[in-house]
Structures are given as structure tokens and as C-alpha cells.
């Protein structure tokens, strides 16, 4: 049984069908990437899983237990940690205190939460900045802090929303390494949305492609980048006709986005 099951989930906003009959599963201890053009419904789907929205139809289950419609803090308690595309650090608090807030979800004492928070900051490479105010971090470090905070709650599933947006290529490569490490060492499952294909290709075991709110393809990365439907939605029909050689497609899909 997959860790996360999304079954026939739909959500509309005033008639706009943001997510339409989406079904997919995420196996435990894997990294799944949710990709698609802007407006494909990725963030809506994320918010449905994280409990920020209630689905109009369909079921979302974590380890077989229905979580759709639960309030965000209950979804967290059920075992899902999330980050935000527009980072939301507790700016007036120290980096360590930010992580302690997350760790308190799973720890009864402040001392226990502090130990957990320090371990998580170490994992994310933020130990040296533990006593800085979160407001003084760079964007790349704020993204790391988002992961640290969510990870501190000891989730079984980590939702990462556009972690790489706005980062420099070197920062992206560093963060990819950190996330691989996190997934392995913390034995956590990751579902991420991402526009930066280089990061997706480096991280994902499985890719789910969303277009106009529907799943148009899912599978291993190598298969996805050769899928005609995917290429069409990303590049338009003309591109497929022109790019007869496989290398060209590979280059388009895996080149760093700058």
C-alpha cells in the first residue's frame, strides 16, 4: 500500500477547475516530483493534501487513513510536514527557536525539542546560524529553515513546495544534496513540486505531470522526459516535430533553468 494515496480528487474555485479527478500514489521512502506548467494545479493539490483546502470530491489517505478535510494542524499530527513556496519564517525568532516550535509537535519537553531541533539544523547545515534571527537569513537559508522546521515535527511525508525557485544554480545543487541526505538519513518520504528540471531529475524516483488540473503522465524520470504528451504541454506541438533527435529533448528537459 502506498504511503500517500490521492484518489479522484477535485477542487474548483468559482467554477475554475483547479484540480480535476487526480489520482496517484506515493510509495514510502521515495521522492516523487509533481511537475507541470504554471497554473497546472500543483500548489492547489499541495494545499489539498496539507489540509489548507478541503477537496470537493475524492479521498486523500495517509497510511490508509483518510486525511482529506482535516485542519492543517491535524494533518501535521497525522504525519505530514510542509514548506511554503513563499517562505514563512518566524522572522522575530532565532533559527533555533523556529526549529524548536516544529520539534514540539513530537516532543513533550522543551529540552527534548531543543535536542531534536539542533539535530535537524545540523542535518540542514544551519547549525552555525542557530542563534541568528530568522529574518537575517538569505533566501536559500530560509528555504532550508522551512525544511528544518517541517522535518523537526518528525513527519512520515514531507511536502516541499517550489524549494528551488529564485535560487542560484550553486545553491540549487547544494540543496539537492541536502535533500537527498535528508530523505536517506531521516527515512522520510518526499513529495515536491518543482519548476527547476535539473533538481527534479536529480532527486525524483517518480514524476507525476499535471496539466490543466489533470494527471497527463506519471512514471520514472527517464520515461517522462520522452513522453510525447509531456513534451507537448511543456514545449508545444511544433517543438516535438522539430526535435527528432532524443538528445535535443534531453537537453531541453534537463538543462538548468536560469
Amino acid at each position, binding site marked *: 500500500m502506498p504511503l500517500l494515496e490521492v484518489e479522484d480528487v477535485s477542487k474548483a474555485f468559482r467554477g475554475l477547475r483547479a484540480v480535476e479527478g487526480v489520482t496517484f500514489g506515493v510509495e514510502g521512502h521515495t521522492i516523487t516530483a509533481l511537475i507541470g506548467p504554471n497554473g497546472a494545479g500543483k500548489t492547489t493539490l499541495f494545499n489539498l493534501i*496539507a489540509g*489548507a483546502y478541503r477537496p470537493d470530491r475524492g479521498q486523500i489517505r495517509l497510511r490508509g487513513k483518510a486525511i482529506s478535510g482535516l*485542519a*492543517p*494542524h491535524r494533518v*501535521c*499530527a497525522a504525519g505530514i*510536514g*510542509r514548506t*511554503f513556496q513563499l517562505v*514563512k*519564517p*518566524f*522572522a*522575530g*525568532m532565532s533559527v533555533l*527557536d523556529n526549529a*524548536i*516550535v*516544529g520539534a*514540539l*509537535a513530537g516532543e513533550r519537553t*522543551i529540552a527534548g525539542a531543543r535536542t531534536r531541533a539542533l539535530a535537524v539544523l545540523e542535518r540542514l547545515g544551519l547549525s552555525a546560524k542557530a542563534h541568528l534571527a530568522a529574518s537575517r537569513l538569505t533566501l536559500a537559508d530560509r528555504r532550508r529553515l522551512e525544511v528544518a*522546521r*517541517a522535518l523537526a*515535527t518528525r513527519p512520515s511525508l514531507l511536502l516541499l513546495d517550489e524549494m528551488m525557485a529564485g535560487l542560484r544554480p550553486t545553491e540549487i545543487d547544494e540543496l539537492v544534496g541536502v535533500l537527498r541526505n535528508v530523505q536517506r538519513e531521516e527515512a522520510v518520504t518526499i513529495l515536491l513540486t518543482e519548476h527547476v528540471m535539473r533538481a527534479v531529475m536529480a532527486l525524483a524516483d517518480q514524476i507525476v505531470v499535471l496539466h490543466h488540473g489533470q494527471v497527463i503522465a506519471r512514471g520514472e524520470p527517464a520515461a517522462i522526459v520522452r513522453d510525447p504528451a509531456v513534451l507537448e504541454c511543456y514545449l508545444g506541438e511544433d517543438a516535438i516535430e522539430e526535435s527528432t533527435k532524443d538528445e535535443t529533448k534531453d537537453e531541453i528537459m534537463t538543462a538548468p533553468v536560469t
Partner: protein
Amino acid sequence: MSAGRRRLALSGAVAIALLILPLVGNNYLVSVATLALFLAYAGQAWNVMMGFAGQLSLGHSLYVGLGAYASAGLFVHFGIGPWAGVWLAVAICSLAGAFIGFLAFRLRIAGVQLSLLTIAFAELARIGFDHLDWLGGPGGLFLPVSERSHVDLLAFRGPPGTYYYAILLLTAGALALCAFLLRRRPGYYWRAIREDEVAAQALGIDTFRWKMFAVVLSSAMTAVAGVFFAFYNNSLFPEQSFSFGRSIEIMLGPVIGGLGTLFGPIIGAVALVLLGDGTTELLAKTGVDLPGIRQAVHGVLLLLVTIYMPNGLWPPLARVLGFEPRRL
């Protein structure tokens, strides 16, 4: 001298000065110090809601008034003293706070709208008590004042020093309670909610529950200030008990001293009273009587602090004195 010893020496000196103040000072000094501590205590209570949890109340006079009238009503009509009355006051104010909090947080009223709601309830109480003849109505409710020379702790009656020590004890207690809570789960969760409520929810915090806790604790603490106010003043009028001006006066201390800090409300209240009443007294000595000079001084102080010390008086002062600034 090490920083730790200097802190200890300084704290000790302040504590001793506060303890012997009624023995060495005249009645005027004691009354000014009592006023400062009253504002420090009420400011500490307000700070729990706004400074820690980020929920702005502009109507804290509601809880001062309700607490005052509850205990005074019991005393005047049934002869029940403040030690029993304070529990009724705390119960009534907790319920009022819970009601307003529930209404606001369930209907997702936040920010400016929440502040307006708190003003509305204070105004509602002011008008309501004007029509409550059993508690004196607009003509006022007066507590019988007996012999003031000996201390009667049971009825909370005595010379000015009695009230001074009572409010000093309350302020110290509130400080200790806040210091305790800040270092524990409530402190972390309140500050997280203050900084970003959506992120707090995503980290498993039931923000409704913790905001309710802040509001109820804040109103319950303010209720005790109301009981003190009733037995210190001995006369209550709806017009002044529930006045918007008092709500502003309560929040000025923490804002000037340092929002969300432990010592800010105390430092701010002392600065307000020293400068406000000091100027008034100084002008009176030179024969000038300027009505409203106190409020004008408060306004200027607020302006200067906002421009030059946006985090309040305490954080920079704490650095100078060698204390860690606790902007938590």
C-alpha cells in the same frame, strides 16, 4: 565584576529600593509608585495577548471595569471582601475574554477588525453599566472607607503602603508567571502564532486553542487589576472604568517599554508615570496648570520611542545594563 554578578547586584538594589520605598518616601511618592505598578501589572497582562500572541486588544479597560465592578458590587451589597470577590472578577473576565475570543477567532476576525471588536465590547459595557442602577449607574458606586491608619488585610483596607505592597506583589507575580510561560510550550507557540499563523498551523499548532488561552489568561490577569483599582480608588464610574483612554494607557507601557519583552511593560509604565506625572507636578510647583499636559507628554514619549527605539526602551537598556534583551 562579572556580568552575572553585576546583574545580581543591580536586581538586588532595585528589589531593595522597591521594598523600602513606602518606609522612606512620602505619601505622594507612594501614590505615584502605586500608579506606575498598576500600569506595569495591567500592561504585563495586555502584553500576554498582544506582545506574546500578537492579538491586538484596544479594549482592555473592559476587564479592568468588569473586575472592579464585580468585586465592588459583592463588597457593597453583600459585604463579601476582595479575597472572595477576586475569584468572581476573574471568572467574569475570563468568560468575557473567552466570548470575545471565540467570536473573533471562530469567525476569523483578526487584525484591525479584532481591535475594533474589543473597543466595541468595552463601549458596550460602559453604556450598559450607565443603566445598571444596582451598581450605581452613571452616579457611581462607592465603597465605604473606614479607618485608614491600621492594616485590615481581610477587607483590603489600610494606609497607602498596603496598596503599594499589594500591587508590587501582583507585578512581581505576573512577571514570574510570564517568564515561566515564555520558556515553555505556550511561549513558543504564542510567538509562532504572532510571527506567522499559517506556518504555525502547518507545524501542528492548534492556533485557535492557543489564541484562546492567551486572551483568557490576559483578561483574567486584568480582572485582578480591576479588583485592585476598586479597593484603591473606592469609587467607580462607568465613564472612567471602561474608558477608551484607560485601554490606551494600559497598552502604552508595553509599547514604549518593548512589546513582547518581559521587562518592557514595567520599564514603559515607570517611564510614562515618571515623565507624565513628573511634568505635571513640576508645572504645578511653578504655578502653571496645563490641563492634559500628562497625555501630551505621553504622546511625545510615544512619538520619540517609535522613531528612535522601534523595539522599545527595554532592549537597548538591557544591553547597556548587561541583561540579555528578551525580545522573545
